[in-house]
């Protein structure tokens, strides 16, 4: 009669199942980036409005034709990356400060969302040297989709209001935050 306990398998093959699980996890998470990178088109030409605001798309961001509009007093163009969006709006003749533009834009969000919560604003530098006001927000669409966004408002030299609004499904904005930051850092404000 042996006193030694019957131990579970302690051979090297116990690493294999765990390694297989790790491979699956890496394939699901990292594989997304590999496949997306293989399919992605390069950043492409700058989008925006000449002399007012132009944004250089990061790799994987493409202009969404559905977001372009040329309404009276407001022009809009947008970039898309999966479910994330960067919408650039230009308000002609706004004649307001970046803070006032931000307040007005925040108020307009109540028309877009059933529920919206606005975060604390902060003063930022947009592009090379333009002063802007940035605020985060979260909102719920009529389809009960939770969206988080960061809006940056600034004003051009001739008084045109510019708002760059980055949005994504709630919880996923962090995944495109660095792309958005790079695009905002390189934006050209007229």
């Amino acid at each position: 009669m042996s006193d030694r306990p019957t131990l579970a398998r302690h051979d090297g093959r116990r690493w294999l199942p765990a390694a297989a699980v790790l491979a699956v996890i890496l394939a699901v998470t990292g594989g997304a980036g590999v496949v997306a990178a293989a399919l992605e088109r390069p950043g492409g030409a700058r989008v925006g409005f000449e002399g007012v605001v132009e944004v250089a798309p990061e790799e994987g961001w493409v202009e969404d034709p559905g977001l372009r509009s040329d309404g009276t007093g407001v022009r809009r163009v947008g970039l898309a990356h999966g479910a994330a969006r960067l919408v650039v709006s230009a308000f002609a003749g706004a004649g307001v400060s970046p803070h006032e533009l931000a307040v007005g834009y925040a108020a307009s969000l109540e028309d877009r969302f059933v529920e919206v919560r606005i975060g604390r604003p902060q003063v930022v530098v947009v592009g090379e040297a333009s002063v802007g006001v940035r605020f985060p927000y979260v909102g719920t669409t009529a389809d009960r989709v939770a969206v988080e966004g960061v809006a940056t408002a600034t004003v051009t030299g001739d008084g045109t209001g510019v708002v760059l609004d980055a949005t994504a499904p709630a919880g996923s904005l962090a995944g495109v935050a660095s792309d958005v930051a790079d695009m905002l850092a390189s934006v050209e404000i007229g």
Partner: protein
Amino acid sequence: MTAPVGHRSIGQPREPAFWLFAAFVAYGAVRLVEALSGIAGIAPSAWAATGVLLALYAAPAAVLVVELDLYEREPVSLAFGAFAWGAFAATALALDASGWDAVVAELFGADVAARWGPAITAPLVEETLKGAGVVLLYLIARDEVDDVMDGFVYGALCGLGFAVVEDVVFFAAAFGGSAADVLDGFAVRVIAGGLYGHVLYTGLVGMAIAEVVTRRHDRPLRRRLALAAALAAAGVAGHALWNSPILASLAPSPPIEGLERVRWLLVVLLRTAPLLGVVVLAVGLARRRERRW
């Protein structure tokens, strides 16, 4: 004669799967704090109410799921481990896998990705990541996963953890203004949806995994794989149906008042009745099997 050493707790440092499990749960906890930091400061009043309500929802749901395993209660550490995998590891890894949305957009266009992306990518990605947790739990404590019912319990607890964190994000975003808003959101999203979401999807995935690894002695591999594929497909399909825009178009637009709440509830039942029926059948069969055992 000596008794074999059983694995009664999740703390099995000799098992490589334990370290993998622990590493991803820790990674997930850190990653989630980072991802939620942008929302955290916007609706601080929502967090306390959200935490209380979700604790009231999650605790009874967890007890109910564990109680379904009539003949063999699962070790508390493994049950908590399953919940933690869903809450932290699976949610964080799902964020890391959000690039599949861009793949869908590249293949089918941005509009299709916005409407159908959640129904195409999320079910496959999330159920795979949650299922990976169930597999790791099996590798850590094989003795504790000895029947299909056990697979359901661990899968359901993974799903519950995932749903709780997902609901935290949703509540903070959508209903954080006042106590009345939070309660309204709780009634709409959690009670109307109830246990019909991630708990059931991943419960089925857990059953699929357990079918393969626990029925070696009484079913040939081909039949086990076929049954497992059917169970997993049912879970993924239920998840896809819930995320799809088809049924959302039938739901009334907010504000949902009066009789429209009945219409809302009918839409929810329509979404979940087939899946609930499948799960009731599957769980019934598993309990019958366990009773014979």
